[in-house]
Each structure stands twice: as structure tokens, then as C-alpha cells.
């Protein structure tokens, strides 16, 4: 196995062009596991840990440009205000060791339906920045996940950053795991209120072949909130509304039975998490803190 160590982004992109089958290596918390279990033997590894450009985040107006190599630990410590949903999700990832190594870019690269950054990024309406020697483009998170563990990046491209607007309203994340720490989600759910545009967005994890939004549930809730003037009044949500939202989130999921839980349990827990996260987020919003 060849080991390519890039020190600049342009080197990395050139290497990726040269050898599109080279597997990018960021924190390695997915890649090394796969190699160790002999799930793949790529001809080459492209180590990105030395590429400084990927390691930073910055603000461009109210948009956070989160470099693909920023670790969960840094998201938690530095971006709790701007990206509360992602920070919440990051807190649930693995263990301190994994959070110190693992990156949001790696999570996107792996594009596992169980990845914890996907629901909050879907809910926030993030954009993914992809780069190659021929240029840089951005892809909406809505179009990013293309199949089981596959994404819209081309073989000659690298994920360089995630662009997320800093939160305008409350965001929540909830995850059901098989134990309290170091777990892959049985199911997870992210929710973001966007009062500025009077929209609610969602993200479902571990309950379909790809991470996905519950689009129909979002429209249902968004229009119900508008219809009853709730964005302005910030009045309490009717139980029936919250319940119906939960049911519609559930309807958006396509889970399977596996060793972590049954499809029926995943559906049920999604409805519960949708209700709970909406309840928490709305309480925040009603409290006027956001």
C-alpha cells in the first residue's frame, strides 16, 4: 500500500488527480478501522493530516467555513454558539480520543447513514465544498448523499470545507444508542428552527440508506406554525401538532432491522425524538433566548 503524505492542499489535489483511487486519510477513525478489519485494501492512502488549509475554520459574514479537518473536540469547544446542533451531535461522538482525532470532513467522507454530523448539517442547511485541481464547487447538503456510504464528490475531488450559516434559532439533536457512550446511533434526529425564513428543517440518521430530511414533516410543521402565527406569538405548540410532526418524521424514514435494533423500534424512537427535540427547541424559542 502506497502512503502519500500531502502538506499543502494543492499537493493533495494533485495527488488525488494522479491517483483517484487513493483513499483520503483524515483522523483515520473510519479508515483505520476498515483496514484493520480487512474490509478494504486500497492501493494508496492519501494522508491529509499535514494539510494546514483543512484544519481551520473562519467566518465569512454569518457563514461558518468549517475546514474538513476540524475535529469534533474543536467544534464543541469553539463553535457551540454558531453551530449548536453540530456541537451537540459532536458531543455524542465516540469517546474523547475519537473526538480528538475524528473530523466532520471524515464523517462526510464516510457518508455513513449513522454518522452523527449529518442530521444537524441537514437541519442547518449546510453546503459542502468540494475541490479538485480544476476548481472548487459547492453542493447543497440535500444533494450530497447519493447512496449507502456514497456522496456527490468525484474521485478526483476532496472535501475541503462545510459552509453553514450561523444559527438564527434554536437547534437540537437527539440520538438513541445501544449504550451511553461510544455508540453508533440506533437512530438519531436533528432539528433546526429558522425563524428568519420561517422554516423548520430536519435531519434523520441511521434510519434510511442515507441521511435524509423529513421534507414533508418540515413543510407540514412550517405551514402550521405560519398559519397559527406561532413564529410571532411564540405560543405553546398544541400536543396534536407535535404528535403529528413526530408521525410525519417517522413516515420519512426507511429503516432496517439489524444487530442494533429493529426497524419498528427505529421508527418509534424517531417519532419520540422528533417530538422531544421540537418540544425543547420550541421551549427555547418561546423563552426568547433565541
Amino acid at each position, binding site marked *: 500500500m502506497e502512503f502519500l503524505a500531502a502538506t499543502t492542499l494543492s499537493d493533495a489535489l494533485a495527488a488525488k488527480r494522479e491517483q483517484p483511487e487513493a483513499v483520503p486519510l483524515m483522523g483515520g477513525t473510519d479508515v483505520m478501522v476498515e483496514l484493520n478489519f480487512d474490509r478494504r485494501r486500497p492501493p494508496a492512502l492519501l494522508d491529509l493530516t499535514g494539510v494546514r488549509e483543512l484544519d481551520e475554520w473562519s467566518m465569512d459574514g454569518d457563514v461558518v467555513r468549517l475546514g474538513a479537518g476540524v475535529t469534533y473536540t474543536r467544534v464543541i469547544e469553539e463553535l457551540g454558539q454558531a453551530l449548536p446542533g453540530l456541537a451537540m451531535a459532536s458531543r455524542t461522538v465516540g469517546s474523547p480520543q475519537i473526538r480528538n482525532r475524528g473530523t466532520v470532513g471524515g464523517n462526510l467522507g464516510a457518508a455513513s447513514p449513522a454518522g452523527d454530523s449529518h442530521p444537524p448539517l441537514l437541519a442547518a442547511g449546510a453546503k459542502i465544498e468540494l475541490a479538485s485541481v480544476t476548481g472548487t464547487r459547492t453542493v447543497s447538503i440535500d444533494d450530497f448523499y447519493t447512496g449507502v456510504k456514497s456522496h456527490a464528490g468525484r474521485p478526483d475531488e476532496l472535501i475541503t470545507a462545510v459552509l453553514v450559516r450561523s444559527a438564527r434559532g434554536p437547534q437540537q439533536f437527539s440520538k*438513541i444508542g*445501544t*449504550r*451511553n457512550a461510544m455508540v453508533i446511533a440506533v437512530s438519531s434526529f436533528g432539528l433546526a428552527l429558522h425563524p428568519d425564513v420561517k422554516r423548520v428543517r430536519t435531519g434523520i440518521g441511521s434510519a434510511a440508506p442515507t441521511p435524509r430530511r423529513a421534507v414533508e414533516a418540515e413543510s407540514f410543521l412550517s405551514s402550521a406554525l405560519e398559519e397559527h402565527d406561532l413564529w410571532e406569538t411564540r405560543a405553546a405548540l398544541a400536543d396534536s401538532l407535535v404528535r403529528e410532526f413526530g408521525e410525519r418524521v417517522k413516515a420519512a424514514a426507511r429503516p432496517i432491522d439489524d*444487530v442494533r*435494533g*429493529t426497524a419498528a423500534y427505529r421508527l418509534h424512537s424517531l417519532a419520540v425524538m422528533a417530538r422531544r427535540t421540537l418540544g425543547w427547541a420550541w421551549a427555547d424559542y418561546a423563552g426568547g433566548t433565541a
Partner: protein
Amino acid sequence: MFGQRIRRVEDPRLLSGRGRYLDDLGHDALAVAFVRSPHAHARIVDIDVSAALAVDGLVAIYTYDDLDGRTSEPLPLLIPHPTLNQGRTPYPLADGEVNHVGEAIAMVVASDRYVAEDVVGLIQVEYEPLPPVVGLAASRDGDALVHADVPGNVAATMVQEVGDAAAAIAAAAHRATLSLSIERSASMPMEGKGVLARWDADDESLLVHTSTQSSTSVRQAIAAKLSIPVDRVEVVTPDIGGGFGVKIVHPWPEEILVPWAARRLGQPVKWVEDRREHFISSAHERGQLHEVEVGYDDDGRLCGLSVRFWHDNGAYTPYGLIVPIITSTQLLGPYKPGAYRVEFQSMYTNTVIVTPYRGAGRPQGCFVMERVMDAIAADLGIDRAVVRERNFIQPAEMPYDHGLMFQDGRPLVYDSGDFPASLAKLKALVGWDEFDSFRAAARAEGRRVGIGLGCYVEGTGVGPYEGGHLRVETDGSVVVSTGLTSQGQGHQTMLAQIVADELGVEMERVRVTTGDTRRFKYAVGTFASRTAVMSGSAVALTARKVRAKALKIAANALEAAVDDLEIVDGQIRVKGSPGSEIDLGSVAVLSNPLRYAFDAGAARATQFAGPVDPTAPPVPEGEQPGLEGTDYYSPVGSTFANGMHAVVVETDPETAEINILRYCVVHDCGTVINPMIVEGQIHGGVAQGVAGALYERMEYDDAGQLLNASYMDFLMPYASEVPHIEIDHLETPSPLNPLGVKGAGEAGVIPGSAAIAAAIEDAEGFAITTMPISPSQLFDLRRRHCER
């Protein structure tokens, strides 16, 4: 020292990274990797190594055809039992057929592990798949057979009966039947197995380091299998990172193959198991299905109990029937069953072998008996603790003979215990009588909480024997060795405490070695919570012997009577007469008359040193030089420790997540040598009990693939899952041994599933009959119960 919270002498070394585990040894050794079967059941048609031969660094590839002499025979069946008439054991390398995923087929020796694994990847094995038998249902169907010559997949059927259970049940005022099952789990020590062998060609001898629970037996096995005189083989255990039962099995195929290859190649050879290998090629446990019929009177007293169960023993039976025998006898716990009949069948499946894991068949038995108690209580509307009290063996009935045969082939006779007192302590500790109002208050807030109990009796300290050797050096330090091994339990500390007290020396002066056949040749091993009872008693007896010898020599030197002497802090002195004393080191000097001297201490013992009686031999008649001794302890029967756990759980009404709010333990292991170590053992045991109740299972698919063979999906509990554990001790000393101890190693794990199932049942209001249970499964149960 005895009875005190002494910090473990092992810890500073282990915690500061100075431990030496198997993989820390033998950096000069060749490395081994194995080709292991990807199929649960298959015939091996062809093994093609041609693509592998060119790899740089390859030293050798061995298959079954290379095995010679007794290594080509099946591995031993360790504990033969007359009813085990279809025992089967594997070959060190598969001979034409594989019976579980992970069975070793070829052994690769190479310059390092990387090369060895690359070679493994290049060896082509052609298989003809056979139908796999996975799970007890498939095994009982018998449509497909694991071993073509074992009809119905039944390794053994065993029946024990006291009284006429069927008649007693039929005549009882009330009857119930229960179907219960427990899933597979496994020991999962932090350090897997590992073997390092060095062959000394000049001396024609082997020095083997292995991560085992029984070095003396591995030594015998290697000598027998390799046809080497046993005095040419020594087996040493380095630090061991946990065993929990899986390392009592011996010899593992690798414990034969690695020394065999080292001799053949004339070079040191080492194999260290990786985690996946541990999952698929070591051993699992639990895995039973029980059908119970019980008859009881209006007060909830048992009249008759009949249990039929099926035990999944995996592909082979190298450890005999020990696990199901223990289940079938220890199921009875602290209760009098009335008439009792138990019948079990030990069944083959195309899965990893099943051998004892901490608790060793007891968690299953305890789960069954405690479910029975709760079912009776529910049926009659009697408090669950009261039903138990009514069925307890009373203290006045000790020793209590159940009329059954135990795992050691001896009668099942409880030596001691005060079960009513233990339960009273537990009820007070957990607040049993106040729980009803707590539950009601929680319900009113929309919360679901429940409480459960689990009581058990554990046969500990089984024989046949252990021994100890003790020597006082001329500097007054004391070196002790015992043949059984330590896997991190704190044996060095506990044994040093005993010696310090018995001999009258400071504990810091005592150094203990375990599991090194160069130091001690006769031993059985570490299992069945037996170290404190067996080796503890043996070193106590040894220390007494050496003490007597020391006093005799000192009496002579001090011109005093033996009875007037005492030993305090290593000084032998005349009681009540300060000033006249001699230290143990000097006594050691006096015990060993010398011709040569290398230091001042020895100079005092040479032939020209002191006044000499020219008419007496330098070593008195009937004595031996040196202040040392050896003694053994061999009891007529096992000791029986007991304990009771109470658990409070809360279940989420929506997500079905299960949370342990409180975990209380009352524990009776007889006299406590070191409360800190006993509590540590309980903590670890409870963690494994919680694991077996809520997290750990072996997910086999129908093809016999273990789907969760890594720590990603095999869920070990972390600190975040293990509750705070509240402990109270009761000490009813065993009359069977000089120390009154009963063993504590497995205690914490046994009633975990029983108590947690009971608590969930109490919270949910429907019966819990299968463990472990996950939120997803609890959710399914809820749906089934409201659909009904």
C-alpha cells in the same frame, strides 16, 4: 493485616506501565498468524500455498498434514464425565473439516506479524460448505448434524433427581410452567491469549510463556503432546490482563502449536491473539434454554421443581460438562426445592466452543430459580422477598446436603451461610419495604421504576488441592510461591497478607510468585473463585510450618522454650522479656550451616563461626537446611459463598431505554481477607452482570457468522453504564478451611440478569423471560403485550 483494606501491591507497577504482558516479551521471536475458517461448517477440499511461498520473510506454513506424533491427535477432553458419551475435541489444525468460523486451518510463521498476515491472505483454501447448525433450535431439530457421527447433535444427556418431582408437582396446590432463555456472552479479557516458546536445542528443553489460568497443566499437556520429558518443559505466566474463565481451557491449540513450531524451527516463536481471533476462536458462555415446571403450596413454598434445559456447547466439548452441571446444581441457590429433577442436554452447534466464563453456568441457573420465585409471588400475590424467606435453607440446617452430585464429583453440601440474615440486610440496604410508595410516587409523575431481587449460592474453592512454598532468606525477606496463577485479581497482595500474619513479618518483606512452574510444580489453576480458599489456606499452612521451624531454631539460640516465643515484625522474642530477640534472617542463617561465605550474613553460618557441638551433625536429624517449607491444602468438599442483589431500574416510557438507579449487594464470602479486594471483585462482577443483562450478546446469523465480532458492536459496559454499587458484608466463616474464607471471584456477576429482569418486570408489569434485553427488545415486548 488479615481483614484490612490493604492497597494492592501489584498496582504501582501495573498502573505505571511496568507490567509485562505476553506481548511485551519475545521481541526476538518469529511471529505467527493463522488461516482460520470463514465457514461455520465445511469440508476442506484443498489448501494451496503456492501464491504465498515467494513472500519475503516467510519461514514456514504448517497444515494438519505437517503435524506429527501426538500433535496430530485431537486435543484432550479435560474433564471427562461418564454421561459425556459423545465428547468431541478439535485438532490443533483442522483435519479436513471445520466446525465453526474461526477454526484454525493453517499456521504461518514469519519474520513478523505483518508478513505472517500477508501470507495468510495469499493461502487459498477450497471449501465444500456443509449445512451449518446455528442456535439451540436448529441443533435440537437435528436436520443437520455438526458431527456426522453424533446423532441429534446431543453431546450428553444428564439427569439428577432427588425425590419424585413429577409426583410432588402433581400433588401441589399450585403449579406453574416457565420458558426461559439466556443468550451467549463471553469473558472478553482485555488481554487476549498469547504464547511465546523458546526451545533450547542444547538442553533439549522448552521455556513457554503463556497467558493461561493454569500453567502447571499447560506444562503437562505440552510435554505429553510433544513427547518431551516433563522435566524439560517449564511454563511461566507473565502478567495477565484478565482471564474470567476463558484462559482455564488448556491446552489451546496455539499452546501446542507454538512450542511445536519453536522446537521444529529451533527459534523462539510467538503468537498473540487479536481481538477478532478472540471473538471467533476462543470460547463463549451462557446460551441456555430452560423449561421449568414447579409446584408450590398456598404459602409459596416449593413442593417440587422440574427443570429441563438445553445447553449450547458450541462445536466441541474440551471442557466437558462443567458449565451445565454447575447450572443444574447451583440453580437451587439458597432454597429447598422440595423434590427436584433436572435433565439437561448439551448440544453441538457450529459455533465457538462454550467453556466457563465468570459465574460459570450460575447466572443462568440463578436467573431461572429467581424467575420461578417471582412467578410464585406474582401468582399468589405474596411479597417477593417473603416467598424467598419461606423457601430459604435455615442456618440451623447447615451443613445442608442437597442429595446431588456437584461439579467436583462430590456431594452438593452447603457448608455455611445465613440466608435470612443476608436478606434482612439487603432489604434494609435497598429500602425494600419503602419501595411501594416510591414506585407509586414515580408512577404519578409518569415515570416507570421497578425493583428486583436475585439470590444465589456459589460453590467456591473446589479441589482437589493447591500448595504453597515459603522460604525466609537470610536478609529476612520472605519469598512465597503457589502454583496457581493470577490474572490481576490481587493474589500477590492477598497471599502476602496471610503470610505476614501467620509468620509475624511485615507485609513489605513478603514477595509472592504465582503460576511459574520453575518455582512450583503442583497446582490445579485459577477458576471457581478458589484462590483464597485453596492457595490462601495452603500458604497459611506452609507459613505455620515454617514458623514452627523458626521457633525451634530460635528457642535453641535464645535458650528459651518454644511456647514462650512470639514473632513480631520479623523478630523472634521471648514474650514479656524485651532485649532477648533474634531476627528471622538470622534464624535463616542458623538453619543452613555453610562451608562458603559470600557476605557477612553467610559468614555467621560457616563452620568456624560459632560454638559447635562436635558430636551432632551440622544439620540436625530429621531437619533440612534452610528456613523453608512446602504444604498443601486439600479439602473434602467445596465451600459455598452466597450473596443477594437488589436493583432499582427506571425504564423510559417512550424510548424503552433502561437505566439502573440503584444496585445493592449483600455478600457473604466467609472471613474477608481484604475488603478492598473483595469489593473490587464485586464491582467488576457487577459490571459483567449488568453487561450480561443489558448489553452483551453474540449475534450469530443463520450461516454461523458472528456479526458483532468486535468491540464496536459487542457492547461492553463503560463507566457510564455501571451503576454506583452499594455493598454490605455478612461474614459466616466456612468451617472447612483454616482461614474460614469462601471465595469471592465470581460473586458479583451471578445474580445480575436475575435481579435486573425482575426489576424491569416490576417496572413494566409483564414477565421478562429472556435476557439480555435491549431497549429495542423491550419496545417489542411492550407492543406485544398491549396488542394482546
